[in-house]
């Protein structure tokens, strides 16, 4: 640091300039790694037996995560089920409680049971959305599919369909809200019961979590700095649109949205 002093008639002023001198303090072997703790958060968790899309936030992006949760957008899952046995934790790796035949199960039967499950969830959705059952508003929202629970609720399916049926295996695609993976497995189990057979869930796989889908997801083999940074950049417009949609409903605000969200793909172990 250099100092230049001007002696004026009344005052003594000091003008300081600085210059860098190489110092051992800046040596990497002295200060060590520069980044030791990177905050990484997850949007909605998947348990270890499930696979699929995980929205993750890095650093400042973590502040956006509560907004994602509050929005209560639906998530899309593929549920792989198998007929013939029921287990304690409703998954294929649990303790088997029951073994039942499934020859009588046809696709038509399955579709009927699915419709029944769907309608019961619709009713529950109406209850939890806090809108009077016999109002025009309720009808319109339900018709357009905008019903969402206002408070915390059990797992609610907003849409449900069978995409594959080849006994004993079948696959369902569901859209749900406030879900947990064990609850989704339980739904498979209950479908088995309704079919007068037994079913367990082989796999719960999330394919879409607003605003990211399978295509955006990075597999563990791809988890590297460049890939993650690229993913964050690619996801930027989607996240901005997401928040624009969020904010456009009740009160639009002019906040500057800067996101650091990326997507990971988890494979079950």
């Amino acid at each position, binding site marked *: 640091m250099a100092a230049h002093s001007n002696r004026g008639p009344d005052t003594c002023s000091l003008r300081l300039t600085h210059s860098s*001198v190489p110092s051992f303090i800046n040596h990497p*072997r*002295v*200060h060590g790694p520069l980044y030791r703790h990177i905050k990484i958060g997850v949007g909605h968790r998947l348990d270890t037996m499930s696979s699929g899309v995980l929205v993750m936030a890095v650093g400042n992006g973590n502040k956006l995560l509560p907004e994602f949760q509050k929005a209560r957008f639906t998530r899309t899952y593929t549920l792989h089920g198998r007929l013939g046995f029921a287990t304690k934790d409703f998954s294929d790796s649990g303790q088997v409680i029951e073994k039942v035949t499934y020859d009588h199960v046809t696709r038509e039967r399955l579709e009927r049971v699915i419709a029944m499950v769907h309608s019961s969830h619709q009713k529950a959705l109406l209850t939890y959305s806090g809108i009077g059952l016999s109002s025009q508003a309720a009808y319109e929202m339900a018709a357009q599919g905008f019903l969402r629970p206002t408070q915390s609720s059990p797992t609610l399916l907003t849409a449900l369909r069978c995409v594959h049926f080849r006994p004993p295996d079948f696959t369902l695609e569901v859209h749900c809200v406030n879900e947990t993976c064990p609850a989704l497995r339980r739904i498979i189990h209950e479908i088995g019961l309704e079919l007068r057979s037994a079913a367990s869930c082989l796999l719960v796989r999330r394919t879409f979590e607003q605003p990211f889908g399978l295509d955006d997801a990075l597999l563990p083999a791809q988890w590297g700095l460049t890939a993650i940074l690229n993913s964050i950049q690619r996801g930027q417009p989607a996240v901005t649109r997401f928040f624009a949609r969020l904010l456009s409903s009740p009160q639009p605000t002019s906040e500057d949205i800067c996101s650091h969200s990326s997507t990971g793909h988890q*494979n079950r172990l």
Partner: protein
Amino acid sequence: MVTMAFPWTRLGLRGARCFLGSSRATGGVSPLGDRLLGFGVGHPAKGRRGRFVTTIPPDVGGSEVDVASAGNLSMLQGNEVDNVHKNEVEEEDYEAEEELGLVKTQLLPSSASSFRSYVGHSETLQKLIQLGVDLWRVERKIPAANILLRLSLEKDVQPRLVLLQSFGVPEDRLGRVLTRNPYLLNPNLLEEKLQARVDFLLSRHFTRETVGRMIGAAPFLLSLSVQRLDNRLAFYQNELGLTPRQTRELTSRLPSLITASLAEVEEIMKTMMANLGFRRAELRALVMKVPRILLANRGRLIRTFDLLHNIIGIPHHLLAEHPQVFRTKLQRIRVRDAFLKSRGLANYDPAHPPSVSLERFAALPDEAFCQEIVGATVQEFLAFQKTI
């Protein structure tokens, strides 16, 4: 400059913990007299906040503040502030402030949990850095940090480096060795003891070059006494039923077996024989092929075996022949097996060709695996992984 008549008062004001720490480390009397220093400046890195008791490194002495030796800008500013302040302050107030640590009369900070405060002033530390010692790692070990600060380049460090090189430690490994085991620089650890340990290994017919390599790979080796080294070599020989030559081969390939926790290694061996059902001869063959299995995480080992044997259905003799699979990530095994199954190629038994060699299954990188074994592109493989 006001002399520091009695530093204990200052330490006392900093808190009782300070005081206790310093006396414990130096036994009450420091070789450098009254320049005992105290405790803990905050470190930006989280984790163990160590504190070390230091004395001023011998090669720094009592020199004046040097503006050109950079870094301690705050100290410079502190001094300037003090200069201005002094004119306005009376004698008694000055002493009070000195007790509170407002006046910096020392060259070095009186407390540190990091080497950064000292590195600019100590030639020993600078030479160690140039050698390749990671000071940021060493400072986590408080006693080691204390030792390093008290070292003299000519008296302690250089003779010890010469000694290590005479043991056969490669020059480019010296930094790594001293980072992992800075206690090798401890003057209390006598040369004769270190020499005795190396001589013991040489007497067990390890070559000098091998010993040097072993120290380079497992620096704590030299901190084990001859008795313990003997015990540990005997442990592997007895438990696995190895010949002396095999023991030498095993421990020279993976020297950290000697410095590892033997209780944990024994646990792994018992798990493999009792829980996983490997015979002793199979375990021996397994370990000679992939010694690192003995240092594996027990839970992960069991899960990997469960996946390979119970779910995929690979028998014991194949697993013993190709133990690399135990070192493979669970994810990789599962995903690759699922991909092979989807193509109808998931046969690992060489008795029924066409089969996939387990070694290649585990070890090949993704591109090679896809091209050579499956005949698909990596993109197809990645796309497949998103469906399971």
